[in-house]
């Protein structure tokens, strides 16, 4: 499960448009320049990049690093569904989602969502929706590792696990 994966096949462009979809689950550091370049499109006036980064202190607990685990085949299919749903809702030209697994050090990015659209309001809205959905639907889990080596899996009470992936044929 912890092997590094390149971009899912080659970036998929549908036959009738320039829509770009890209999903990656990787142990490698996230390369934001590469992602921004991948979603850039002459039709777009906006690219929004969201990075989720490892925070030092959560609810008073000090974290040394996070370690992520993933149910990879299901995570890929849920991420693909989320991208497709976002594409139905907003005029997305380019979209890339990368999630790291394994150890992520403080201040490093564990997740990146990049969306490009003709106008900025759609890019902000789609990016916000995608990260919100990723956090409650994709089977990925984080473990907080403290300075004393104490490890604790995070299983939030209010979200995730029981939420079905988006399903709209």
């Amino acid at each position: 499960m912890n092997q590094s994966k390149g971009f899912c096949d080659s970036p998929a462009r549908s036959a009738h448009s320039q829509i770009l979809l890209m999903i990656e689950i990787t142990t490698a550091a996230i390369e934001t320049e590469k992602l921004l370049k991948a979603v850039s499109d002459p039709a777009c006036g906006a690219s929004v990049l969201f990075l989720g980064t490892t925070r030092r202190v959560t609810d008073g607990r000090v974290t040394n690093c996070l370690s992520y685990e993933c149910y990879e085949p299901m995570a890929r299919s849920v991420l693909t569904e989320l991208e497709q749903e976002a594409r139905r809702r907003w005029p997305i030209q380019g979209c890339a989602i990368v999630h790291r697994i394994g150890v992520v050090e403080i201040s490093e990015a564990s997740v990146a969502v990049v969306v490009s659209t003709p106008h900025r309001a759609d890019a902000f809205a789609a990016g916000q929706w995608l990260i919100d959905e990723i956090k409650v639907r994709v089977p990925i889990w984080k473990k907080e590792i403290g300075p004393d080596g104490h490890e604790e899996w995070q299983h939030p009470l209010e979200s995730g696990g029981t939420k079905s992936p988006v399903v709209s044929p």
Partner: protein
Amino acid sequence: MKVRVLLFAEAKSVVGESALSLTLPENASVEQLRQELSRKLPQLIPLLSRSAIAVNQRIADDRTALCDEDEIAWVPPVSGG
């Protein structure tokens, strides 16, 4: 029938394995699977009650019937991002 349940995060840590083999009646439901998991792993009942069961990489409801070919996973509340 014998089924294999993939384990993740806290469930995997507590069991110490990435999968668990269970014997269930033929065409048992997800609910019966949950009962068997509760019987085998009573210490994980609180987590199980908050978890989903995925069958062939889709969240399944408790009435879903299982077969021994299914890919079954215990999906605890997720915390990616």
